[in-house]
């Protein structure tokens, strides 16, 4: 009996350490039954980010295809935001500097104030933040579509609120999305600990893909 407990304890330890190497997959999931080689099997369908169409700081149309085969971090902000956005952008800049030039990693910042934040305004903002190229995309587009993708797909709050400073309310979260467009992590973008955890998790995710290839 004692031996059994020890074996069970060891097994649970092993299974825990095994699962902690892979990041969890977040969001609602579904199961579908399908036939493989004449046998019925149950498959899990994960929540994935659907296609979208926005315009980036260069004035180019951006869709989900631009992020194919990329691990990316999504967030929501607006350029005239007096509250948490500057803090988030300072933190995201660290993520950008860390993975600058890495083709596999991208950043996607959505403005929630598309009336003001035109591609030209976003371009100037990016330049003043010290960001060049399009590894870090700043996108604008249809207001409703931006709020919808924020709330329903990236699972964060984004919207207009006349009582909030600057007129908009939004989450301070950074959302980590994998190459299959699945949400793999949510991080507090307003503090250093959250940012460092995100950087570590991007590395973990890259390693997952590298290990899968081998």
């Amino acid at each position: 009996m004692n031996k059994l407990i020890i074996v069970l304890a060891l097994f649970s330890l092993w299974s825990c350490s095994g699962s902690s190497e892979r990041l969890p997959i977040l969001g609602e999931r579904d199961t579908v039954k399908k036939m493989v080689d004449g046998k019925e099997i149950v498959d899990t369908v994960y929540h994935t980010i659907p296609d979208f169409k926005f315009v980036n700081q260069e004035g180019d149309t951006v869709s989900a295809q631009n992020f194919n085969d990329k691990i990316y971090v999504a967030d929501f902000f607006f350029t005239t935001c007096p509250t948490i956005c500057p803090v988030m952008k300072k933190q995201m800049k660290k993520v950008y500097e860390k993975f600058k030039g890495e083709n596999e990693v991208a950043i996607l910042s959505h403005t929630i104030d598309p009336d003001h934040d035109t591609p030209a305004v976003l371009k100037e903002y990016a330049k003043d933040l010290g960001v060049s190229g399009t590894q870090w995309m700043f996108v604008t587009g249809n207001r409703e579509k931006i709020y919808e993708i924020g709330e329903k797909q990236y699972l964060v709050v984004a919207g207009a609120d006349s009582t909030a400073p600057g007129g908009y309310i939004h989450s301070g979260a950074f959302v980590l999305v994998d190459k299959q467009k699945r949400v793999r992590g949510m991080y507090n973008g307003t503090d250093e600990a959250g940012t460092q955890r995100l950087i570590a998790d991007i590395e973990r995710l890259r390693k997952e893909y590298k290990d899968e290839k081998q």
Partner: protein
Amino acid sequence: MKNNRIDMKLSLLLASFLVVLILACQGGSAIKHEQYVAEGFTLFQTHCANCHQRDGKGLENLYPALSTDYLKDKNQVICWTKNGVHQPMTVNGKSYNRAMPANPGLKELEIAEIMTYVYATWGKETEITTVETVKAALEKCPPK
């Protein structure tokens, strides 16, 4: 002789009283400075640090650092704090052209506390910025 001794005692007493008074007053102003700095720190975190950052270094070319160049005219900084900035400015040779939002809700005492904190931290000042200074500066602010 007796009178002399009483005089001496009296003057000693007076002298020591004066010393205590001076010490107490100095202590009082130092304590007041500390209070202003502490209150100002909290207000700074709420109203200023998002853009100018907790370390006062600003953010790239978006928001200027609170350097001695930025702080050189305290009356102007008081106006900026209350009314915001709506034209480009040059700090340490870099130009910044993003509007700074106004803080119409800040009271004169709160601005005095913020100034005391900012000038103690990045301007090496050891005196408080008084409410009177803030009041006088605000009266002379350029029209918005």
